[in-house]
């Protein structure tokens, strides 16, 4: 079959868009739990046969002797809780929501869903709302609010955040580690750039995507979003950028389920209409795509949640499926050099771990070496917490070492916080695969 062949008629089985959004009995987690207000995870917990495979795959349990591991957090916690007088154990706050345990379990126990709901319950019922921890977590989880303010006066904010006095105060008052440097805010956000250029430059009836840029590529690394837009337009796609909120990833990880639910509501509403009009959703951050794909349908039941999930893709994955990306790369060339590539946990879980390395294999002038299976350790907001900083760096150690063992002096990953950790641990500059592909296929100088 030719690589460039495009599905034309609607009945073509190879057209992934024609897929039923949710196959009737195969996948609809919400329907397992009838009243989704009051979750009952018993069916999942009964599936656990205590093989401990999840525990051996948990990066936190590997370095933190006090963390009882996913098997306890998931099935055992739910079993205990069924006997009324048991509260959710506070150790659930030490889970970083990397979701590795999910893919490890041979019995399909919905571990991360259990952790997310348990964490939500813990924060709701047991956490003191005026505590330093709660306030700090709330601030971290709602990064977007902070970023929105910060990006209004990027230079001032960058100056302030880079100021060691401010950092020391953050650590003392809020418990945000002073070891890390705050990511810089861009002078111009992605959305500002988008409006400035006048929105989509390509219009198409049948090749259309809606971009979920997330917070980070909007406020901090708009170059990633720009590269993505140029790349998709190069392949003839109409790109639209609907109004959106945070994907919810940091909120899940901090048990702020109400915040996450509100954000998800906005996102599902704005994207599901577009899906109906034939747009697919693409994201350049693998935690954002994970959230839309898996966590939304696991935790919320807004109309359209399932169809947004089924139509969400990671950007590179999407191009590989619909275009002859490998063919295009074969005849292209860049001067990018060697990269040490780290697959984020949330890319791994989506089955995307090898993709960037595979793609660069076929491109002359660039090469990516996979630095292995270890977790980077930062897990979004996790590594920002003063009390978790050390655990986070211990988890990351293996990745740092492997990065340094490669010939590369530059790192590569799809996840913005993994990128932060990679840079923090090695001093390497980190790039997103989209940037390299854009350089190869579109070239510099376009707007």
């Amino acid at each position, binding site marked *: 079959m030719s690589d460039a062949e495009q599905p034309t008629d609607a009945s073509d089985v190879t057209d992934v868009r024609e897929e039923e959004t949710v196959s009737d009995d195969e996948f609809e987690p919400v329907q397992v739990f009838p009243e989704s207000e009051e979750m009952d995870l018993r069916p999942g917990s009964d599936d656990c046969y205590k093989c401990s495979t999840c525990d051996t795959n948990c990066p936190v349990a590997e370095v933190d002797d006090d963390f009882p591991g996913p098997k306890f957090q998931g099935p055992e916690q739910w079993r205990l809780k069924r006997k009324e007088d048991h509260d959710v154990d506070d150790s659930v706050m030490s889970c970083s929501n990397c979701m590795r345990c999910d893919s490890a379990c041979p019995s399909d126990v919905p571990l991360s869903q259990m952790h997310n709901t348990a964490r939500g319950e813990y924060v709701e019922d047991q956490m003191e709302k005026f505590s330093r921890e709660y306030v700090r977590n709330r601030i971290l989880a709602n990064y977007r609010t902070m970023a929105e303010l910060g990006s209004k006066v990027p230079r001032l904010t960058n100056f302030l955040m880079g100021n060691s006095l401010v950092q020391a105060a953050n650590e003392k008052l809020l418990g945000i580690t002073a070891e890390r440097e705050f990511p810089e805010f861009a002078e111009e956000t992605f959305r500002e750039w988008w409006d400035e250029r006048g929105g989509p430059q390509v219009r198409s009836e049948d090749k259309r995507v809606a971009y979920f840029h997330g917070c980070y590529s909007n406020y901090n690394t708009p170059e990633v979003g720009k590269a993505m837009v140029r790349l998709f337009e190069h392949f003839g796609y109409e790109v639209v950028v609907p109004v959106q909120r945070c994907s919810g990833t940091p909120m899940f990880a901090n048990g702020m389920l109400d915040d996450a639910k509100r954000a998800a509501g906005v996102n599902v509403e704005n994207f599901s209409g577009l899906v109906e009009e034939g747009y697919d959703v693409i994201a350049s951050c693998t935690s954002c795509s994970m959230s839309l794909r898996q966590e939304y349908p696991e935790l919320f039941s807004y109309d359209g949640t399932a169809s947004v999930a*089924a139509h969400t893709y990671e950007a590179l994955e999407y191009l590989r499926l619909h275009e002859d990306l490998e063919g295009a790369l074969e005849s292209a060339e860049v001067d990018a050099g060697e990269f040490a590539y780290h697959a984020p946990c949330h890319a791994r879980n989506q089955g995307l771990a090898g993709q960037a390395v595979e793609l660069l294999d076929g491109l002359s002038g660039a090469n990516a070496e996979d630095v292995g299976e270890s977790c980077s350790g930062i897990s979004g907001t996790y590594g920002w917490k003063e009390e978790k900083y050390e655990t986070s760096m211990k988890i990351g150690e293996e990745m740092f070492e492997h990065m340094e063992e490669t010939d590369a002096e530059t790192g590569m990953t799809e996840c913005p916080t993994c990128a932060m950790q990679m840079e923090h641990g090695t001093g390497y500059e980190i790039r997103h695969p989209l940037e390299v592909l854009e350089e190869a296929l579109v070239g510099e100088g376009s707007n």
Partner: protein
Amino acid sequence: MAIEDDVTVIGGGIAGMTAALAAAREGAAVRVLSHKDSTLRSASGLVDVLGYPPRSSDDERGEGSASEESETTPDGPLADPFDAIPALPESHPYRTVGVEGVREALTLFDEVVGDRYRGGHTDRNALVPTHGGAVKPTARYPASAAEGLASDDRNALLVGFETVTDFDAPLAAAHLESAGVPFVARGATVSFPGDFRVDAKITRLADALDADERVSIEGDGYTTELPARKALAETVKPHLRGEARVGFPAILGQHETEAVRADLESELGAAVFEVPMGPPSLPGMRLEGAFLAACRDAGVRFTTGNPVVGYEEDDSGAVAAVRVERNGATIPFHADQFVLATGGLVGKGIDSDREGVEEPIFDCHVPHSGDRYDWFADDAFGDHPFARFGVETDDELRPLDAGGEPEFENVRAAGAVLGGYDFAAEKSGSGVSLATGRTAGRSAASEVTTYE
């Protein structure tokens, strides 16, 4: 649309990885699609070829299977598995690949694992003590288990840890003795030195030994810090009564097993071995790591984390692509040839419910009796037909439909998804996976015409 390979292997267990490796070495572009980790992570890490002759297999598998099988009873462990292969029923996968096929597969295995495994110098089965205190005939065993062989007559002390509950050393020792081993076995239970959680993961203990972390141990009224390996030896010493070898559950490091063992040996003045354990199994994980590395070196691509749920046919009725399910959408992976290595009832390659038994991806024919009550023997340890459920194949390992014709020209099957053998009863699990994986991978690659 555009993900395309020469050979796509479905399943990342030992059968799938062997098929992928064999095909890649023939020059094909190979991708492995795997949903979960393989059962290797739970398996002992021992590589059995054939430990016992199969039991009577007069045909309870129902329609479609045309074998005349002799009545045999399990009569003790087999000394030489290769010797016994020609006498197996014709439907057995070993008969399909032949003795040579089995030997070639073991050669491939030996090359992948290098000096991590023993047993390659002889055709004879080795007898390895298991964590339950049984003695298991096996063809290849981890180097770390070598000093523990049951055919060796040196006395042995087995050491268990209070917190590693799967290994009860005194009980295992008693079992070994009653199994008639030619040495005296004794067991002792100690607490793992250092301040680890009661439910510490065995990987955590293994890491401590790998890194030789300093741990604190209690002396006579004082506490002292020692490197973990030395501390462990100190804990064991008082229990040693002149035994020439000491066996530990298989938790002696994830990566530095040989160094850990060497340090323990010099501290204890005795040979040290690991006793293979149940899940999660470090020897199984180490073996998986060795195969993954070999596959990567050969250029095999891996796409993991999501299940294959169906396929697309081309005009000629061959399989054009398989489809991977991902949260409601399915994503096609195209290839010229496919290898089905999804495991058996445990690996989820064969599914059963009250209505019947099926192979869920290609819906290949799985011979079984229409009457559910025929799937089991009355005796719990009896000869259960369900243990042999799986697809039947032609000489090239292509699954056969109910009429005995290949289901698809370009699909082959390997490993536990195959029928006609009972890996648990005959102790042949990894051997069948290796042998059929290699054959399937090679013949798939030889069909591929589009070499670059």
